[in-house]
């Protein structure tokens, strides 16, 4: 490659990287500017702890924060053993050919649009939950949403976990083999302790994905605006709340409070990414 094309390529790539970084920064700025009337007035933190009742002039989103927390954490609780089991299977416990098949399938699953999961949830999962637990009422509840969401986040977690497994130094594995370890011992004593940063990264990325998803919760969590008391209660996430309220009158206070809601979500997701970065950094130094 000549020097000129090299230079051109560098400029093009720099510009595209700058553009995507700028977009993220602009979104943050946009949320700050539009949410400022609420943040500047010191109202922001009271919004985090108040209920939502536009009829009485209350625009807090405590119910939505608890809804998001409950649904995303529970989905990780379901997805974690599923994902770890799958990766252990692919990472030496299962036959190679089937492992490759599973790997291909997991990658395929990352491409399924979330609306498909939501749709399946309404027709297949919600009726089951409703008949199994009578107190679930409609069957649209935290449990249904987080079960469905765990299917959505598992592929993400599996890919990060597998990354962690693959990064284990091959010499350690050879050493374990030389000592006569069987595949289960190798997994428990060598691979898992070495791969844990990848596992933590996977969990955090999965959590980020679960918090950011809108459609599954919007379609099958029920969207009630109260702080849920059990996993069989209907709940609303921050994302569904934005989707539901953004369709209302642009001039209303309810609409303006949405920016603060978006900001909360942005900060939560940013924290997840920062946590991942720090972990990766630590792994790099070790």
């Amino acid at each position, binding site marked *: 490659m000549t020097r000129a094309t090299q230079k051109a390529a560098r400029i093009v790539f720099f510009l595209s990287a700058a553009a995507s970084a700028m977009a993220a920064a602009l979104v943050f700025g946009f949320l700050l500017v539009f949410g400022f009337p609420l943040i500047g007035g010191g109202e922001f933190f009271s919004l985090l702890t108040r209920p939502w009742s536009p009829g009485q002039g209350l625009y807090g989103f405590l119910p939505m924060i608890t809804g998001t927390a409950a649904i995303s954490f529970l989905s990780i609780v379901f997805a974690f053993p599923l994902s770890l089991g799958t990766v252990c299977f692919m990472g030496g416990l299962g036959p190679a050919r089937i492992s490759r098949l599973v790997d291909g399938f997991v990658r395929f699953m990352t491409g399924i649009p979330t609306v498909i999961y939501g749709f399946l949830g*309404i027709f297949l999962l919600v009726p089951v939950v409703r008949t199994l637990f009578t*107190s679930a009422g409609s069957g649209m509840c935290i449990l249904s949403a987080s079960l469905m969401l765990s299917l959505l986040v598992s592929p993400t977690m599996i890919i990060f976990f597998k990354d962690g497994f693959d990064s284990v130094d091959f010499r350690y594995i050879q050493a374990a083999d030389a000592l006569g370890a069987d595949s289960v011992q190798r997994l428990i004593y060598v691979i898992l302790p070495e791969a844990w940063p990848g596992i933590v990264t996977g969990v955090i990325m999965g959590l980020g994905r679960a918090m950011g998803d809108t459609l599954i919760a919007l379609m099958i969590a029920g969207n009630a605006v109260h702080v849920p008391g059990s996993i069989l209660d209907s709940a609303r996430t921050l994302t569904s709340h934005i989707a539901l*309220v953004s369709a209302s009158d642009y001039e209303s206070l309810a609409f303006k409070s949405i920016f603060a809601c978006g900001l909360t979500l942005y900060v939560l997701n940013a924290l997840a990414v920062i946590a991942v970065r720090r972990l990766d950094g630590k792994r790099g130094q070790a």
Partner: protein
Amino acid sequence: MFGRIRTGIIKKMGIAAISLLTVAALFLGAAQAGAIDQFSGLKGDIRISGGTAHIPVMKEAAKQIMSANPEISISIAGGGSGVGIKQVGEGIVDIGNSGRAPSEAEKEKYGLKLFKWAIDGVGVAVNPGNPVTALTKAQLKDIYSGKITNWKDLGGSDAPITVYTRDASSGTRAVFWKKALGKGDIVSSANFVVSNGAMKTAIANDPNAIGYVSVGHMDVSVAGVSLDGVSPAIETVKSGEYTVARGLYSNTKGDPSGLTKLFIAYLLSPEGQQIVVQKGFVPVN
């Protein structure tokens, strides 16, 4: 071999369908010699969004116009009345549908023109398996405010009531809240659904559900509940007996022109009003 037989059958079915369509087209062609002809020779697109109660009529009208003139494309989106008003006001769509008249503030801000082409009732609906078929307005208010929480207090089975409602952008909700609940409270544990269609699906799947849908959307999958002795039906809405009703509006920014004007004229024409009747609404002309 099976494959061949099947394709044979499909071919036959195809031919039958095409001949049926041709016959239907001939009849329709003979019957219609009005508003739809205005579209001939024109091309372009019409973008529509907003009220979800309007969608069946919009779709049918669009189908008629687009099959008469393939050069015209009409896109229809939902979103709710609030979205329709906002998007048409901001010039994102040509027609914004709403199941309530836009407020004075909205009309003034965007310079909206209103066209009311049908009247629609908003009926209380329960699962078809529910023995409760009649309620008083007071009972309905108590259900929605969370005072009555079990169907057995209303003569039904011993099961908790699941309350469904629509989000704030819904015109159906606005009318129901104002005229059926008398602007009363809606309990915070109520489930929210995003369209008339989603409401119907939710009620059809949940034996303990109560919700409200546009009368035009009611079918066998849900059971209408009579309110103070009047059942939600086209006849009672038409006669004015059933009072939880509203106009269905199509709004434009300023006076409509071009294809948009023709589309609205089509809705108000005898053919358009025929579609309104066919889809279960009360015509205005």
